């Protein structure tokens, strides 16, 4: 059973996935599964509202293109604002996970 996503992390994952190159919605899903080595499962339906929200916020932008199997598909790419947001979220995530990890590893004599 893959772990549940923490709330708010889906946006970050999408931004990261898209930052590696333009992707259509299904591609975003595959990319996240691939780079998380199938550890993270995303509920397929929740992906699209998140994509629309990010686009509405101006963090990604979309354009219609042709998919690998020659179908018309909508591709998303990161905007400048998206790049900044991703950097910020990554830094915050690292700080937070480091802190949480630190706490969890703490030994009695350190206190």
């Amino acid at each position, binding site marked *: 059973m893959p772990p549940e996503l923490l709330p708010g992390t889906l946006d970050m994952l999408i931004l990261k996935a898209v930052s590696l190159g333009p992707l*259509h919605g*299904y591609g975003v899903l595959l990319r996240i599964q691939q780079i998380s080595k199938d550890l993270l499962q995303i509920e397929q339906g*929740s992906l*699209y*509202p998140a994509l*629309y929200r990010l686009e*509405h916020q101006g963090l990604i932008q979309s354009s219609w293109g042709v998919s690998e199997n020659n*179908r018309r598909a909508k591709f998303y790419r990161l905007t400048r604002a998206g790049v900044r947001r991703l950097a910020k979220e990554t830094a915050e995530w690292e700080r937070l996970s480091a802190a949480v990890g630190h706490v969890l590893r703490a030994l009695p004599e350190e206190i």
Partner: protein
Amino acid sequence: MFFRLGDFLRSFFGRRRFEREMSSELRFHMEAYTEDLVRSGVPRGEAERRARLEFGGVERVREECRQSRGLRWSDELARNVRFALRTLRRSPVFAVTAIVTLALCIGANTAIYSVVDTVLLRPLPYPEPDRLGSLVVQVRTAGGGGMQNAHTGATWEGIRDGVTSIDTVVHNNWRQGVSLVSGDQVEYVSQQRVGAGFFRVLGVSLLRGREFTAQEDVPGGAAVTVLSYPLWKRLFGEETEAIGESILLRGEPFTVVGVAPPGFQSTVPADVWTPLRPSRTGEGSGTNYEITVRLPQETSWPEAQAQIRAVGAGLLQDDKPDGVEAYFAILPLQESLTRGIRDTLLLLWGAVGAVLLIGCVNIAGLLLARVGERQHEIATRMALGGGRGAVLRQLLTEAIVLGLLGGVAGVVLGYAGLRALEILGAGQFGMWQPLAIDGRVLGVTLLTALSAAVLFGLAPAIQACRLDVRSGLTESASRSVAGGRRRWMRRAMVAGEVALVMVLLVNAGALIRSYARLQGLDPGFDSTNVMTAQVPLQDARYKTTSSVARLFNESLDRIRELPGVESAAVGLSLPFQFGFNLPFERPGVREEGRTPITNMAYVTPDYFRALRIPLVQGRLLRETDTADATKVVLVNEAFVEWYMDGDEPVGAFLKISGLERQVVGVVGDVQQMNAGAQGPLLRELPSVYMPVAQTSEGFMPLVHTWFQPSWIVRTTGPQQGLIGHIQNSVAAVDPQLPFAGFRTMDEVRGGVLAGQRFRVVLLGTLAGLALVLAAVGLYGLIANTVVERTREMGIRLALGATGSQAVRSVALPGLGLGLAGVFVGGAGAWMSASVIASLVWGVSMDDPWIFGAVAVCLMLIVSLASFLPALRVARLNPAETLRKE
């Protein structure tokens, strides 16, 4: 509410494209996943099923996508509007009641507001209107005061010569109908007489030519005229210069020197302007001039006031009675021009506002009742996850949809109402005709409708939000008992309605009583079977007394021969009309502190027989009172009372227009129009009657400038074709005389009381409308209580309560509310008394009769509205009621 407006609008309008693209994007996802599953060995059918399953609810995803794009609001709005329309269609009685109520209220508001806006709120149509003023004499006495805005020729000369830094002009503020001949065109037009500089002071430059010079604006000056733009176009066409052309006004040639610009509105509606030619004598000896001023930029209002006051001080009489203070002042021109109608309009504005409020309260009551009926529906929606906010928004949308529907219907009604106002108030609106509904009025109407909607939509919406879901679902509407919170709110609203109606009815009652008094005054003569015909005699051929007397005698001789004519006469003025007033002296008697002024009319001897005015003392006039005989006059009883100081009137001498004349008789009083600002509209005024043949030379052309003598014909009964016969008889003597109009004496009175009638009809209608609305509101409240408490009443009846006890327990709260409303409203009416006081006569607001009568009427209606629906309780069958669920 986090969405960007641009995005929102784009998605709102690019809606179909958005939906299409979203569909194809989601479809692509599913198909790509299916393909991947097939490639990994899953059978196609199974793959499609899994793809659908793992994707989740497509509709839910789509909805969430729309929300992410900020579409939710527009979607919800559209859905709410659709839902509201569907709900209204489902309950047509409610919808029609609410929309008709609103349409009536908003229609009344639109009509009245468009008049208020045009007359009171908009600046006058002249450049820098706030620099324009009107010269007035303010009079202050211990008991109050007054204002006089008409002045004598002497005052004008004093102001003209004394005031240096303010631009002043003198003019008449009335118009006269005159015949105009230009080439072969004949028209009946309105003429206003204005002094040199009239257009300059108003700040209007003429389209062609020039206005009058000071040299032309003197007695005997050149006969010149300025034409209005429409008249100029009609007479000459736009191609012709027209300047220097000659036209005939009432038979005299005038040279056109100017044309006013298109759209120019004078202080009274007029087609031609001629020089006023002010003087100290004749018309100038009385207060017949208005003085309009323009303050230059460098002069402030206080400075101007001070200057006018200083110059004016020398022009006022020194021998004022003690305690009376009088001084000259400048009144803003708009205030001065709207003086006659301002109070009426404000009163009506307040009244339509109150009616709108009552209408809103009614609709709010209906909506509240519906929330009661719909609590099941609302509770269900909430139970299914509809947020309170969503329910609130939906109920408000319903109210706004109602408001807009009512508003549109109201504008249509308002348009009709405005036309009716114009007909009813003919002559009341002076320079502001024609009245029209324009964009500004429409905007205000829209705003009114929307705020009304929010007003009547909010209370029920809030009520709905307080709804407890569980009890809302389990409780049926007919199971509740007395004392719910919802009813408390509705009760307060109904009591408020009754209070507002009380205020309106008391005011309307005062107006009606005042009008009834004026109508019911003993006229002092017999008005039945009397026909009158006014004929303007400004014609150059009737400048001498003898020519006028000959016209009268010869035409009357012919009229007397007509079938059914009992007597016929001519008089300068009629009862109910303004009299011509004139100063006089009693030789050897010094009047203290006042210049004695009396109404004066020339009459033919039969005047008193034709009108049946009784002789009180002495004798009537005779045919033998000719130009060569002793100069005699009659006076009326009011004259004796005002001026004779107990002296014997018959045989006394009066000096009138330079000649001493002997009083030979006293006749009864008739009601006449009161020219003064104070006092009742109609009253007995001191009057002098003089034989036509004995008027001084020069008097005829002077008096005929403003007055049109009336032929008075008394018949033995209604006569077919009388008007035609009279016309023929006069035409046989002088075929060129135009008739200004035939009226019975009742019609003459109607014309004088038109302003009063205007107010009575309007305020009466509005108060009636308010009364009906409030009665409907109260009826609705009680009827609703009956429905809600059916079960409770059933139990009470089953437990032994009598039918009349049950009815009482339902209806009595209505009476209580009515009483509370009457008391609060009575206090309100008391406070509003000062507004109405200036519009009524002979009626005091301390009058307990009006309050009492209105309160009794209102309580009667309240009882009806309470008991009628409550009677249904008595017909309840307890067994059936309890079984029914």
